[in-house]
């Protein structure tokens, strides 16, 4: 198996609280890796370390290494935007940019140096089609993105992330604010996308993990309890905690 991201001995504390303890993990390329675990176990923090959004937090103490294709991305000070650009982010609830629908996607292209109107237009259309949003919004591209439904907004955010041509897509409980139909749409999209991208998704919905995961990581209280392929993890869990969690008797 080929690995896209390699996390080694990652420790992280905010103030005096240890959030992540000795995380060692390899994230396989072109697969959906699901990080499972109860609330407050450090899933989101781990995700934020990958795209360095953790830099925006106060009092963070961090040690260890994260390699993206063998390149250190945790300690480098240069080109943070470049690192972040490689990882599209889908957050718990969609945050469209305060612009119209068209500009929401064009923004990422423009800041990355694309100014040819024709090319931007083409890219906007392609990426809206890629997330199956084009037919719903093609007549209202100049409308504020905030007028879309939450489900549409989340797909817009996905399209916006894809437009800057990332290699990885990070998703932090991307369906938790969505209705079942929109959730299914996002999940389907994820399965399609793994052809070209490496996906890392945080969730606390077990059934969702069963539906789309290729590789599963189970975290509890800042530690990785168990990780393995979906088949191993769901059908032959090794740790007692994992078994309990899968059976719903975990406390």
């Amino acid at each position, binding site marked *: 198996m080929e690995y896209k991201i390699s996390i080694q001995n990652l420790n992280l504390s905010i103030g005096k609280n240890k959030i992540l303890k000795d995380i060692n993990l390899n994230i396989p390329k072109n697969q959906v890796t699901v990080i499972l675990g109860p609330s407050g176990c450090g899933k989101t923090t781990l995700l934020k370390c990958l795209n360095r959004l953790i830099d925006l937090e*106060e009092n963070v103490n961090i040690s260890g290494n994260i390699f993206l294709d063998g390149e250190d991305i945790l300690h480098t000070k240069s080109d943070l935007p470049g690192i972040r650009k490689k990882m599209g982010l889908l957050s718990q609830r969609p945050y469209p940019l305060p612009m119209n629908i068209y500009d929401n996607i064009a923004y990422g292209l423009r800041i990355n140096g694309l100014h040819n109107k024709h090319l931007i237009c083409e890219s906007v259309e392609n990426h809206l089609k890629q997330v199956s949003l084009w037919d719903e919004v093609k007549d209202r591209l100049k409308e504020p993105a905030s007028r879309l439904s939450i489900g549409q907004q989340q797909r817009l955010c996905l399209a916006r992330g894809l437009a800057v041509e990332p290699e990885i897509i990070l998703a932090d409980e991307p369906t938790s604010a969505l209705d079942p139909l929109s959730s299914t749409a996002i999940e389907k999209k994820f399965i399609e996308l793994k052809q070209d991208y490496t996906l890392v998704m945080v969730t606390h919905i077990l059934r969702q993990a069963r539906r789309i995961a290729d590789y599963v990581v189970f975290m509890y209280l800042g530690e990785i309890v168990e990780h393995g392929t979906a088949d191993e993890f769901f059908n032959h869990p090794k740790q007692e905690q994992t078994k309990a969690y899968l059976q719903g008797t975990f406390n």
Partner: protein
Amino acid sequence: MRKKLLALEEHFFKLLMQLSIALIVLVLSLIVFSIFYRGLPALTWEMISQTPKGGYYFGKEGGVLNAIVGSLYLALGATLLALIMGLPVAMLMNIHLRKFKRLVNSIRFLLDLLWGIPSIVYGAFGFSVMIVLGVKTSLLAGIITVALFILPIMIRAIDEVLKNVPVGLLEASMSLGSNKSQTSFMVYIRQCSSAIVTAIMISFGRAIGDAASVLFTTGYTDSIPTSLTQPTATLPLSIFFQLSSPIREVQNRAYASAAILTFIILFISVLARVLSNKYNKNKIS
């Protein structure tokens, strides 16, 4: 019993609120009434279309065009300058210095202190700097002094709104590969455009209405300034000078000038409303 007490409490505070609202409205309408009652009869086309002629301050012909134009120049200049300095500061505090909450909070505290300093102190400060530099009273000196005076207001008004922008928007923008400055001036500025318009208008209102800070720095003249180095008349000072006159007619003109100032501020407020509604449509909640 307890239920009754709660109902009574509710009733009491509701009454208290209604009372304070009534009081504010009453005071405001009294001020407006007294200005218009004495000012409107004296408000002629001549007042707003002419500069003071020879005997103006003795009740002869002329108007306060010099002060109207002067005030607009001064307030526009100062607001622009304060915006150019203040907007980046507010952005810096909320985006670049996000991690240093303590530092940012002390900056906020200092700005609130500055906000509380009476404008005459800014005037005196500007004046002493002018003496050191050997500069005479001029429009430019006034603009700079008034800009300093409204700067804390501008920064805090914008800051207060930037503070409440959801962090998810910052993360979304950063994860697309934008740097902090792009996030500031392409994303946050749109999210807060209506608030920024409001901040500009509040600052403009303070700038155009203040007499003390321009007293020493801008000076006074009966002609319309043609360059930044000339002394400039302002409406608040014009009101002050006319009101100090023992002649009844001149006093009435002071009220008329106050009415003009009130109209300008009213116009600006309405404009602010219209503009902020217009820019609000893209805002995400």
